[in-house]
């Protein structure tokens, strides 16, 4: 178990280093002087400002040293300065990250409940019209890009029915839930097909086991069989898939936050790119990639704990 964990953690570290190097070194791929690029272009660029950028990024030193110092700064949460907002990038992120996390958490609750629920329903009613409706409906939902579903949701529930606000992220718990319902829904919709399909297949596989038939023959209630024998045993692939989708959702906020005008780190990234504010874009990308890699590794580590056979064999 310990060997497995340390191997996974080493892999995590290696991937993080490689990905962060790509994010850092991207500056050098940009045409022209990296300092000018980092400062956001030539217009209104004073020599002092340029000096500041050079110092912040240690641009006079060899690439590897620059990267090492930058990484060291990042680990200490010194993410550089935004030259557009003239603010510490770390402060910008700290102010906006909670909103994004709330949105991802809300969307996760939605896609887990709806996706797993639909998958269970389809598996239990396999071969009926309910099954085909779930499969067809979720496939359809997966074919609609999130920005289109966002606008359709706004059009119907925001503008026509007026049930939900159209933009912003709201105040307080109730306000936040109210404001984030449509964004979370449009973020979750695309994941439903994947989750429900994995749930359905995993349930069908687990339901074919002998002990399920034995339980049925001993007069256990069907609902308990579904929950305790089929779903419980099908949990491995479902949890893994939910974890992976949730990890990827951080990237999905880029689109949804833009569509709903929510000021989280996703819309910050889009704004940063459109205003050539590369330090901010770099920091957001680093944060999102780190979050993604960490969560996927965690999922990988948690997965075996669901099966007592594996857990105790490796303990």
């Amino acid at each position, binding site marked *: 178990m310990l060997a497995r964990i340390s191997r996974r953690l080493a892999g995590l570290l290696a991937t993080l280093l490689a990905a962060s190097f790509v994010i850092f070194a991207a500056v050098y791929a940009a045409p022209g002087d990296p300092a000018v690029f980092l400062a956001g272009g030539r217009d209104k660029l004073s020599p002092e400002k340029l000096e500041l950028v050079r110092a912040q990024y240690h641009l006079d030193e060899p690439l590897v040293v620059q990267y090492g110092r930058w990484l060291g700064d990042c680990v200490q949460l010194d993410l550089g300065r935004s030259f557009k907002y003239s603010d510490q990038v770390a402060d910008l992120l700290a102010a906006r990250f909670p909103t994004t996390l709330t949105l991802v958490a809300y969307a996760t609750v939605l896609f887990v409940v709806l996706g797993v629920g639909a998958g269970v329903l389809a598996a239990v009613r396999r071969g009926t019209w309910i099954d085909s409706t779930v499969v067809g409906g979720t496939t359809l939902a997966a074919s609609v890009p999130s920005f289109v579903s966002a606008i359709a949701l706004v059009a119907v529930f925001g503008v026509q029915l007026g049930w939900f606000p159209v933009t912003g992220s709201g105040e307080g718990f109730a306000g936040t839930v109210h404001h984030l319902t449509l964004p979370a829904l449009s973020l979750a919709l695309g994941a439903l097909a994947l989750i429900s399909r994995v749930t359905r297949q995993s349930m069908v596989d687990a339901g074919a*086991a*002998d*002990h*399920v*038939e*034995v*339980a*049925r*023959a*001993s*007069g*256990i*209630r069907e609902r*308990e069989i579904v929950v*305790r*024998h089929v779903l*419980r*045993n099908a949990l491995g692939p479902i949890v893994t898939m939910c974890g992976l989708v949730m990890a990827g959702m951080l990237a999905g906020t880029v689109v949804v936050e833009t569509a709903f005008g929510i000021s989280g780190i996703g819309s910050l990234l889009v704004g940063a790119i459109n205003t050539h504010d590369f330090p901010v874009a770099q920091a957001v990308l680093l944060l999102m990639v780190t979050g993604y890699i960490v969560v996927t590794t965690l999922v990988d580590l948690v997965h075996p704990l*669901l*099966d*007592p*056979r594996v857990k*105790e064999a490796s303990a």
Partner: protein
Amino acid sequence: MLLDIENLTLELPGTARPVLNGVSLRVAGGEVVGLVGESGSGKSTTARAALRTLPDRTVASGSVRVDGTDVLALTGDALRRHRARTVAMVHQDPRSALNPVRRIGDFLVERLTGTGLDKKAARTRAVELLDTVGLSDPERRFRQHPHELSGGMLQRVVIAGALAAEPRLLLADEATSALDVTTQAEILALLRTLRADRSLGLLFITHDLQLAAAYCDRVYVMYAGRVVEEQPAGGLFDRPRHPYTKGLLACSPTLGEGRRKILPIPGRPPSLADAFGGCEFADRCPDAEPECSTWRPEPVPLDGEGAATCRRLPALPGAGTERRNDR
């Protein structure tokens, strides 16, 4: 009569012959009844009929009564209660009968709460049951997972689960076949004790005719979905009447029998794709006559007790010709 199966015929779409063909079988309270046959002979299906766990689209005629209740007519909640309370089954492979990710205790508590006990009482009772079936340290077993126990211990757990329902009828479907010999003997002894203590009816399904004859009070022999012979165990062993029963006895070696020749039954066991115009056993039968292939099989009563489904019964000698009579 505890279990009373009367002229049961089961047909599945897509098969050439019925899975069960006019099966009649009885088990009284406190009685151990053996049901013997090769795989595919329909013995497990007969047991499953008592629980009504038959494949979808099965067409059934005849009747299955447990304690007077018409099982084939049960549906919904009544059927669930029947399975939870009246009849319990012990399967061949205990490892696949238990959910691998749940604890032994969960398995028993689930069965017990199904009979109407509350959680706390069920827990106490579960530990008692583990003790009853002869498992050491029942408190610890309660918390263990199936993969931590041996096959013999697991079969005891499964039997404990079957007893949880306090059933009237226990169906043991090859319950000892997957166990090694010493464990097998222990489980057999346990089942006998439980039957005596609780005056259970026990339907003991096995492919081992020797074992059935030694262990049971009465034995049914099945072939191709039909009961071909039924006799008290001793009689069956000494005076098998149906050629198939004789064949079964002749093809298994026994200790202390000297140089008796082992004679395999020629041909292969029939599958569901084989259709028959007359006696199913005719083409493998050493005593068959051409008329056998058109004869509509029906049980012929024997002089003492029981019956055999053989056209040539009056003409055949009462004992296996190559068997000694000094058992």
